[in-house]
């Protein structure tokens, strides 16, 4: 069984969307395209907002992903943990499907006796190590997030260290919202490492609105450009990236 490619959107935000409809609906659609939507709520100490945390949870739930609310200090660790757990969860789903084909009915893997679970888990671990990963990182850069962007950047570099230690390949792209004229701004086009992303957040402009839904839609589209590019521009990726990254 080959692991194939896992597609994830990682949304980092601190609050409520206020334009462009319900982001959970977009997340549900993404899930239909086998894209997992994970959400990390970035908060400052002691500012838990009931409405914000409900939205964060519901986006991830609809997107088949994982949500986690964190305070600034634990951000780096959480970003890599969430990404990894979401990978495992997706792979678990794949293995579950295979299992139910073998076992006949809707038997979930954790309804197996504990000894058998171990074997399944080893397969999942193996797949997680070798699967190719494509992540659209979508960062909320509205005014209230401004002073958190330095930490977000460190967390992304940290994510890259963890993911690049696997044997599977990785592709990342970094988007922020709101953009100047569009819903999102591409800070860095598809690339294989985040380490060279230093100073990226310096050049983004201030924005008052938080169009989380439309931004998610743009993130889903990013996967289409990656698919198309790898078919048409095979071997000319470098050039294309330069253009998009500027």
């Amino acid at each position: 069984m080959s692991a194939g490619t896992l597609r994830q959107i990682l949304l980092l935000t601190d609050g409520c969307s206020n334009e462009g409809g319900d982001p959970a609906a977009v997340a549900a659609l993404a899930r239909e395209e086998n894209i997992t939507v994970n959400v990390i709520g970035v908060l400052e100490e002691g500012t838990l907002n009931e409405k914000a945390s409900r939205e964060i949870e519901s986006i991830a739930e609809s997107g088949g992903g994982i949500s986690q609310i964190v305070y600034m200090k634990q951000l780096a660790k959480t970003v890599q943990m969430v990404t990894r757990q979401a990978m495992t969860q997706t792979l678990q789903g794949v293995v579950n499907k295979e299992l139910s084909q073998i076992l006949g009915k809707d038997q979930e893997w954790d309804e197996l006796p504990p000894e058998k679970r171990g074997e399944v888990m080893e397969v999942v671990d193996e797949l997680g190590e070798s699967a190719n990963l494509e992540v659209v990182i979508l960062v909320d850069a509205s005014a209230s997030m401004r002073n958190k962007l330095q930490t977000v950047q460190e967390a992304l570099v940290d994510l890259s260290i963890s993911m690049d230690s696997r044997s599977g390949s990785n592709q990342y792209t970094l988007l922020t919202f709101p953009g100047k004229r569009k819903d999102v701004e591409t800070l860095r086009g598809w690339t294989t490492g985040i380490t060279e992303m230093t100073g990226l957040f310096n050049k983004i402009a201030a924005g008052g609105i938080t169009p989380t839904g439309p931004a998610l839609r743009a993130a889903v589209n990013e996967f289409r450009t990656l698919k198309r590019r790898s078919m048409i521009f095979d071997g000319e990726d470098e050039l294309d990236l330069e253009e998009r990254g500027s």
Partner: protein
Amino acid sequence: MEKMNSTSKNEAPNLPKGQKITGKWNRNSYTVIRPLGRGATGAVFLVEQNQQYFALKVGHNSMSITSEVNVLKHFEKVQGQILGPSFVDADDLFVYGERFPFYVMEYLQGTTVFKHVERHGKEWAPVLIVQLLGDLSRLHRAGWVFGDLKPDNLIVTGPPFRIRWLDVGGTTIKGRAVKEYTEFFDRGYWGMGDRKADEQYDLFSAGMVFIHLLSRQRFERDKDGWQTISKHIEQHARLRPYRQWLKRALTGYYTNADDMRVALMKMIQTAESMESTTTSPPKKKAKKPAATNTRRPKKTVPMVGIVDVILVISFLIITSILYLVGQLI
């Protein structure tokens, strides 16, 4: 699909004292004595079965519990030595109709590494690390890397005092990516390498455990991770004698745990001879460092001194025998 978040509904259940637990699959029963601790993947309870104590870990996520069981079972296969707590049972339990996966392991009784060094002296810090490196060597030879090495995952059992691994959840097959880590002990955090599970990853963490243990400090990274660490080593009087060894361990100079272990044993001896006023280095190879360490003056006595000691002791014995004989008559 399962979802992870910080709300309470997805946490491991709290099992009350005296509660009887029976596994769904293997039908083994355990009685809860008291809670031992709570971590990211579940809660650990002291339990009893036929007057024998065990540690029972119950979680909410089958994936992470199953992973840990896999590791514990693999540890059993690492021959000869007891590395982690031994595996006993894995099963499911029900609380109010909800299913929770759990596993049972050996109950390790002991103190934290910090308490041990506090009670028995700072000379224990390098000795515990020597023991730890021996275990790491065995683990590495079996094809595994510990991963999340930190004081919280260690315990000192005994006497005879021996460092043991308490939580083996982060153990990873060599060559894969390390999944669980703690920033201070993580090579990646300090910009000193990646998170690929290799020997040097553990050796870096072992070095940081040593720093934490002797300086009793965890500090944060400045701009340059390596500079932050080396500054700390230079500034700390307790760390300075070990600085060459530490720097080598942290920069990947030692390619296996044995090399680092032998080098530390040499460092212990030089550090001792630097501290004590006598100049002759101890010649005895410290196979059981614990024993040699507590009797430091004895082994640093020069040859002439040994003769003196023998003479004094024989004199004392002879006089006491004469005294006893005199009393009897």
